[in-house]
């Protein structure tokens, strides 16, 4: 399913479009999460989905996966209506760590991304085995792929899960808070890995993030989810003190470093009854 042409035109023209939301709306438990959402993601783009807790960022991914049904409008992935089990889409859900006592090898987990959903007894397959090993090598996990996944560190588990998400030949990778609960080094390493996959493999990346700074240098476009609305734009247009302060409903400052990078900083409110983070 992987095509060799990886240089995708990043302008959102019809052919290279990876995902399209058209006046989409989702209601969960009688409450409108967001509505009238229209935007496009071009093939090969690195898109950050930002917004406050509970705004519906994860729901945006779940709508793309076909797990959460729309109440209005439409969502398409690579020109097709969304459906579960699409081999062209890889998914890393927001998760807690695997149970330390989970006794299954990391490489078995990667293999599940290939044929774990099929009925019947899995037969040994050389081509599938090679495909799995190729993906494990791509994310740099060869050294620990034979170990039980519960014994691996948070960063190692994320690499394994990225391999699992890509193994079926995914051209779009959806990651829900993949940097959560990683230390700074691992945040940087995983961010770099995802960017490399985006650039070298031409995989479209949609990444839900709480803390935008580790990925900000790579992001082509930003999708902001807040207050039932979704705003989409270039980082330089959206990552601005006024825009973020309005969207978060709390004081946020955007600073520019000496080498031109943007940094988002939450300000201390004069009177604060809860923790800042």
């Amino acid at each position, binding site marked *: 399913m992987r095509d060799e042409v990886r240089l995708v035109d990043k302008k959102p023209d019809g052919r290279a479009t990876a995902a399209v939301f058209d006046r989409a709306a989702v209601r969960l438990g009688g409450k409108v999460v967001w509505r009238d959402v229209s935007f496009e993601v071009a093939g090969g783009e690195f898109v950050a989905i930002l917004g406050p807790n509970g705004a519906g960022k994860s729901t945006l991914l779940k709508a793309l*996966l076909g*797990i959460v049904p729309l109440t209005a409008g439409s969502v398409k992935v690579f020109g097709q209506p969304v*459906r*579960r*089990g699409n081999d062209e*889409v890889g*998914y*890393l*859900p*927001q*998760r*807690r*760590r*695997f149970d*330390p006592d*989970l*006794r*299954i*090898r990391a490489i*078995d*987990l990667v293999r*599940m*991304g290939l*044929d*774990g*959903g*099929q*009925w*019947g*007894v*899995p037969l040994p397959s050389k081509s599938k085995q090679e495909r799995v090993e190729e993906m494990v090598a791509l994310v740099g996990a060869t050294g620990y792929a034979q*170990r*039980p*996944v519960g014994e691996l*560190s*948070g960063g190692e588990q994320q690499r394994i*899960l990225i391999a*699992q*998400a890509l193994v079926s030949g995914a051209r779009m990778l959806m990651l829900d808070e993949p940097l959560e*609960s990683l230390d700074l080094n691992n945040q940087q390493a995983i961010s770099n890995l995802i960017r490399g996959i985006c650039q070298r493999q031409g995989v479209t990346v949609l990444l839900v993030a709480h803390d935008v700074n580790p990925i900000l240098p790579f992001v082509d476009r930003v999708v902001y989810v807040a207050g039932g609305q979704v705003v989409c734009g270039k980082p330089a247009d959206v990552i601005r003190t006024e825009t973020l302060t309005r969207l978060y409903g709390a004081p946020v400052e955007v600073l520019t470093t000496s080498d031109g990078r943007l940094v988002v900083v939450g300000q201390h409110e004069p009177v604060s009854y809860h923790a800042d983070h």
Partner: protein
Amino acid sequence: MPQQGPSWDLVADIQLLLQFHFMQNAFIAGTLVALLAGAAGYFVVLRGQSFAAHMLSQVGFPGAAAGVLLHVSPVLGLIVFCLAAALGIGWAGRDLDAGHRAESAAVGSILAFSLGLGLLFFRLYAGSAAGIYSFLFGTILGISDRDVQLTLVVAVLSFAALALIGRPLVFATVDPDVAEARGVNVQMLSIGFLVVLAFAVAITVQIVGTLLIFALLVAPGASALQLTARPGRALALSVALSLAFTWLGLALAYFTDLPVGFFITSLAFATYVLIRAAKGAALVRGGRLRFREPSFATPS
């Protein structure tokens, strides 16, 4: 009952073991049960559903009693009750092993009620304690030809079902969110496995009884998963251990005239303890014993 003790001649011993019809039945039923319990046990341990297995076996107790009371096979009664309980759990859609406090109280009340119901049924039937005893601790040496046939049908069907759903079941167990996104029906698989588990429990109760069911349905899987994290090997090892416990237990019981349930549970327990001890020793020797990083688990 046995006139001759075991010798060092294995062939003669086996001939001795199988000279009576009840022992032939015990070995056939025991082998079928061990195969199914060992295979289902791997999934029970991987899914952390030991408690569900235990609960099903207790709910099966009045079922067996009802079977006796109505002059049909007690195994049939077990199957009907276990199946109803499995569908009940599946329909409620709750994870019984997640440790919800309110639910454990509710489940505890249901279990006590079902044991009490079983007590009543046995009293209504004959008023004898022997029937109760055999269902609490196993009745392998009194298995009828009809029960052997029923066990065969149940074991073959359940084994086929496990072979069919095993792979997506492991996926749904280990990584339910991704499995769901990949098109796996996690909820249906969960119910499907509970149904297979109900059948496995129903026929395992014949061998080790309601109270000792862990020996065949949990211990082999737990031991196997300690030894290997490869799904195929762990499954095969679980089945092999379950078979070994059953065969050895039956032979030891025959030659010593002590209860089968005692030997099977002892073998299962000893194996598990030995493996844990050996693994602990290997960790210390290899210097791999280390503190786990704290995981910052947050409830979703």
